[in-house]
């Protein structure tokens, strides 16, 4: 049975609809990540689950209970805010124990739970400090401690790592992942950072414009995106897209040709495709390989040499940007004409409406 289920949920501010009918099931113990560009509605959706935003339409169930109009404190959720939102006038122990105090737990039980949470997060030595005396990572831990002490059914994280510096972010990401395994908690996590999404999630929900674009495991989203948006959003650097024309149809494959792409045969579901259609060919930068006889033509604008890999920023003849990642160090002359080859199995064709034409 699902720990949390959302059906046909909508949210409007006046005439402006920001969540346009979202359905989602979250299983117990699952780590679900909402990901999407700024303004896609992922935070709004999370806040609706938390009860901080009203639900205009649709149903939200946590456990068995319909929670549309339940007070945030009674939903069995705990939320970690991007800004941590620690209570500045209380020390760490009081911050963590605030909910327990409000719920009327006796002092000794409270103390025990606070200690336990502090132990999990290794912040026992900070319990007497005020938030202003903590570093960013420590504040983050306290904020998480405040959530775990409540033993909620669902944890909600709203971009919890975006205020940390890069090194700390990697460290906290690993800790979050470990914490999830240790607690076996159900977690809904919002981020705009797709690396966080890929590394943490059991299930990623890609949102754009208030609509769920795709739900699936990270690798599924990477390998079999539903549409051009998901394909472009998941994966770093971004997938290359080329305008192509269909020149021939084969069994489970389509032969396409573009201004800078010599005819290639790409495996695809051919239903609904006719010769002469305009389509989009997606190739991940990692799948492009430098090859003097390859079908993809470009001119090098800039080569980023990172030591372990080289990122080539190129342009095609019709000014489409083209990125290629070579897993070796190599130097290239600026402005040099280059050609790439790719494995057609790893490329994806998208129809004019953006949907992907993957073979079944």
């Amino acid at each position, binding site marked *: 049975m699902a720990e949390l289920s959302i059906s046909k949920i909508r949210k409007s501010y006046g005439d402006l609809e920001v969540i346009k009918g979202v359905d989602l099931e979250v299983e117990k113990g699952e780590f679900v990540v909402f990901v999407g560009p700024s303004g896609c509605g992922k935070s709004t959706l999370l806040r609706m689950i938390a*009860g901080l935003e009203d639900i205009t339409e649709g149903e939200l169930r946590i456990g068995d209970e319909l929670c549309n109009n339940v007070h945030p404190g009674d939903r069995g959720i705990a939320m970690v805010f991007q800004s*941590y*939102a620690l209570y*500045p006038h209380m020390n760490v122990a009081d911050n963590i124990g605030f909910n327990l105090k409000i719920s009327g737990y006796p002092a000794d039980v409270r103390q025990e739970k606070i200690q336990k949470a502090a132990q999990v997060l290794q912040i026992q030595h900070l319990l007497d400090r005020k938030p202003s005396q903590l570093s960013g990572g420590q504040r983050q831990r306290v904020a998480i401690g405040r959530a775990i002490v409540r033993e909620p059914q669902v944890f909600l994280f709203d971009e919890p790592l975006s205020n940390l510096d890069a090194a700390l972010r990697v460290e906290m990401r690993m800790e979050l992942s470990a914490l999830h395994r240790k607690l076996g908690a159900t977690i809904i996590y919002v981020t705009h950072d797709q690396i966080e999404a890929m590394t943490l999630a059991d299930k990623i929900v890609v949102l754009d414009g208030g609509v769920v674009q795709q739900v699936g495991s990270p690798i599924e989203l990477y390998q079999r995106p539903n549409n051009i948006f998901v394909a472009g959003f998941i994966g770093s650097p971004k997938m290359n897209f080329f305008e192509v024309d269909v020149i021939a149809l084969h069994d489970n494959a389509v032969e396409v040709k573009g201004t800078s792409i010599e005819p290639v045969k790409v495996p695809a579901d051919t239903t609904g495709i006719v010769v002469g259609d305009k389509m989009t060919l997606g190739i991940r930068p990692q799948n492009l390989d430098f090859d003097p006889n390859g079908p993809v033509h470009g001119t090098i604008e800039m080569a980023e040499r990172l030591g372990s890999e080289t990122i080539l920023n190129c342009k095609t003849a019709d000014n489409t940007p083209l990125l290629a990642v070579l897993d070796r160090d190599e130097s290239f002359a600026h402005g040099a004409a280059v050609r790439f080859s790719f494995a057609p199995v790893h490329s994806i064709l998208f129809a004019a409406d953006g949907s992907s034409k993957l073979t079944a």
Partner: protein
Amino acid sequence: MDNIAGQKSSLTWAVHISVVVLVVLWLLPTVGLLVSSFRSADQIATTGWWKSLFPQEQNLVIRTERPDAQEFIDGVYVLEGNLFELGDAADGVVSVWGTSSREIDAYSAGETADLGDKGLLTIQANGDYRFENQSEFSGSRGQRVFMTAVSPPSFSLDNYRNVLFSNSSSSSMGKAFINTLTVSIPATIIPILIAAFAAYALAWMDFPGRALLVAFVVGLLVVPLQLALIPLLKLHLGVGIGKGYLGVWLAHTGFGLPLAIYLLRNYMVGLPKDIIENARVDGATEFQIFVKIILPLSFPALASFAIFQFLWTWNDLLVALVFLIDSSGDTTVMTRQIIELLGSKGGNWEILATAAFISITVPLIVFFAMQKYLVRGLLAGSVK
């Protein structure tokens, strides 16, 4: 390199000079009042307060003891004693003296003056005198002595004793002090209580017409309170509150509320939204959020408004005159008391200075005790 953060601005000296000027401007009258309040009327009349720490030269007129205190020792009649003690003056050092107002510097200390048939008068520098005569002293009064003496600085609490504890109704600041406290403390606490609730609602609770209400409150800020004096008093008399403490508390509350709500709302609106939402997710009710999160975090704003309101009610005369003070005079506040002193004891600077200083002590204490809350940033560290 001039504009790098952390470097001293070239205007630092201007800031320092302004600070010094402001401090001096504030300190001069305050210290002046304080020092004057410890000095006697004579001292105030002869020298300024800034000279009070140095010995000062005074001209005194003191009479020796009356003839009936004379003793007959070794064939002469003698009057002996200390002139400073007799004249009830502070000890000093006599430089010159005389027995006539025309020649007050006829003799120096230690000299003996031959006053003819009145006898021989010797005055030492410390004020000891010896007046001797072959024949018996007669008359009812002692000999007048004019002396020029240098007295060391002296201060006393006599003025405070007079002003605070004398029983004559015209100068009883003690009672007025208590009355003023009775007005000010509730008149500070009541509006803060009401305004804090109102400010929270206006800042963080969604209800229709909230923006209009805020605009209305801001509008009330510019309404002069004089407009409301007579209608309010009529209302008070009409509903039976009459003139008294309750009336003046209500009036101060009403006049203070717009500013209080405005200040507190603006402060509370600036509190991080996340903290309040987090408390909500933590299960706190609106009231718990208000009491446990908003109020503690708003302490600097509450304190600064409390200071404003307390000082204003403490120094208020107009509202007290209209709503409180009746003909019995039992509820006179200090501002009114000082006015009466100005009328009845306008020349007694020592009384006025003391009364004035009594009335500013409490504001000074309040300010110095609370000023750190005006500048403290309690929010540091809550959100990144």
